[in-house]
């Protein structure tokens, strides 16, 4: 990547006793990222969370009970306390926390909170990742088109972005999920809901990516290598794909990483408000962290709020840390 030599040169001279060699942007970014402890910690947590989501059944079979199993024996749930679990742990009163139930029990139902939290990662991450993918696809396509062609195309797309930003987003998403039918596109139940949530969350977040891509494209368009390509007879689509896109990968990657936590929060908020993925009693449990919190709000038992809430917090924080680090690592102007 010839255009980046000016950033790799000073880096290379810093390393003493090593022969000066050309390093790719990716390698520079990686060395920087490795030095950033917070970002690396975030990255490790992200990987662990993904593993947790993928291997949820296995983890639950080792450390807990299936998420759809009800444990309502009298020695676990206290009927005289309205179904609150027996047993305290630290300040988690009436949590039922024990070696058998790591995060305690759900009041009344007596489901294993640990396995519910583990399963919650599945819905959360699946929706967040795929919704981000939708935003990135729509956002970068429209952003490049607006930035590259300019003129009336740019005006229309920019106006569209502003319209989307003027929508009360959350309100709209809730309303949309509510208004749509129970069965459509050959899907039904939770699979339809998940598909809808991915589409809605992704569809409403594209302007953020588009704005950044558009700005980058605007400045890239004026660069010499684009002029050179054009003078060699290259046409619009070729220039976009072969000349622009490689230079846009870094910002798109960074903002996609930072969009994931936003989408996790968005999904959790929808679930908290009761329009997310619905809890099932058989089959794939469809547990969501937001949904658990909503149930907890009705019960006012602290462990029931604490663990799902912390799951959201840790996940979002890990993605934010990693995304921030990635931005610093990939930004050639970063003053580290």
């Amino acid at each position, binding site marked *: 990547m010839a255009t980046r030599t000016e950033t790799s040169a000073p880096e290379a001279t810093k390393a003493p006793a090593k022969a000066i060699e050309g390093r790719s942007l990716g390698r520079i970014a990686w060395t920087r990222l490795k030095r950033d402890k917070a970002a690396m910690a975030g990255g490790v947590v992200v990987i662990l969370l993904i593993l947790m989501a993928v291997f949820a059944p296995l983890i639950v079979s080792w450390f807990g009970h299936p998420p759809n199993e009800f444990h309502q024996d009298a020695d676990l749930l206290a009927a005289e306390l309205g179904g609150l679990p027996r047993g305290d742990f630290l300040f988690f009163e009436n949590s039922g926390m024990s070696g058998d139930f790591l995060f305690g029990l759900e009041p009344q139902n007596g489901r294993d909170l640990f396995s519910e939290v583990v399963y919650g990662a599945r819905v959360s991450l699946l929706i967040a990742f795929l919704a981000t993918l939708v935003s990135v696809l729509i956002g970068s396509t429209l952003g490049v088109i607006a930035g590259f062609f300019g003129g009336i195309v740019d005006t229309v797309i920019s106006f569209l972005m502003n319209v989307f930003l*003027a929508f009360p987003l959350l*309100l709209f998403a809730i309303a949309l999920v509510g*208004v*749509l039918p129970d069965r459509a596109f050959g899907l039904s139940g939770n699979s339809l809901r998940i598909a809808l949530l991915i589409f809605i969350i992704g569809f409403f977040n594209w302007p953020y990516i588009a704005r950044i891509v558009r700005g980058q494209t605007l400045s890239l368009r004026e660069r010499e290598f684009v002029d050179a390509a054009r003078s060699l007879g290259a046409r619009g689509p070729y220039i976009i794909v072969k000349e622009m896109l490689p230079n846009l990968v870094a910002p798109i990657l960074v903002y996609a990483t930072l969009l994931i936590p936003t989408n996790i929060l968005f999904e959790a908020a929808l679930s908290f408000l009761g329009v997310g993925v619905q809890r099932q009693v058989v089959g794939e449990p469809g547990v969501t962290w*937001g949904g658990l919190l909503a149930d907890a709000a009705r019960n006012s038992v*602290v462990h029931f709020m604490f663990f799902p809430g912390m799951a959201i*917090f840790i996940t*979002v924080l890990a993605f934010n840390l990693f995304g921030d680090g990635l931005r610093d690592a990939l930004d050639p102007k970063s003053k580290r």
Partner: protein
Amino acid sequence: MVTFFIRRTIGAALMLFVVSISTFLIFFGLPRLAGATPETFAARYLSRTADAHAQQVFAEKLGFYDPLWLQYWNWIKAVFVGTDYDYGTGIEHCAAPCFGYSFRTNHAVWDDLVDRLPVTVSLTVGASILWLLTGVAVGVLSALRKGSFFDRAAMTGALAGVSLPPYFTGLMFLYFFSYQFDLTAPGGTYVNFTDDPGEWAYSLILPWITLAMLNAAAYARFTRAGMLDTMGEDFIRTARAKGLHERVVVTKHGLRAALTPIITIFGLDVGLLLGGAILTESTFGLKGLGYFAIDAINKQDFPQIMGVTMFAAFFVVVANLIVDMLYAVVDPRVRLS
């Protein structure tokens, strides 16, 4: 200047128009694709016992048999000039701005919205003052002591703050401060400011803190980045070279320049919140616009949903407009573009 203002105002009006069309299509067009008929729409206004004939008559009266564009036209006309509804028992006049009547309660949507507004405004005003002050203060201190312990602690805290969902912090606050320690008002309390200002603040303190925490964290991050940028500018060096006091350099030269983008974001955030702080309101059971919206959506009350969405979009667009205009007044470069 005047042309700029006019152009922006027309742009804002156009934007509201597009938002209203899309909202209308989603709530009145989409259900049709999903199989809803004019009769089922009318059925929402009637009791469950109403027969098919009554539904047809009512659908006719409310214009549900009209093509969509005509329905939209009637809707928007009512907003501007009001309309008359013939319910059979007599003609009811709905004065402009008329957003129609609720499917369920038959209350005028506009009256309900105006009713709920004070709660949301109270929540927004208190929280926004709180987060602006704390966020900017922390951001400035962090930027001035870049790399210090305070900076690192504050920025870690801020990152944690933006990662915390408000309903989680809200629930935890309620649990500890209201139910365990009995320091604050329990969820669902709201006292009008005009009735008792002290009680009003007491009942809102937890929602304020919850909402402010989230935004203060974000503002601290913005302010720090902005301050760092500004303090590296040439005019700051010039100011220092002139021998100005460091305090004057920071407040009059640095902060003023760094605050302009913050104020922009602030304006937009306040606009967004005035349309309903959905999560905070539903966590604390405050019956503001956000609560109203959720309620309307859960009950599939389309006139209410339409009204509250437009109300919220209106605040966002107007906030945008005000910010743009203030910007043009403050910063002459804006008008040139």
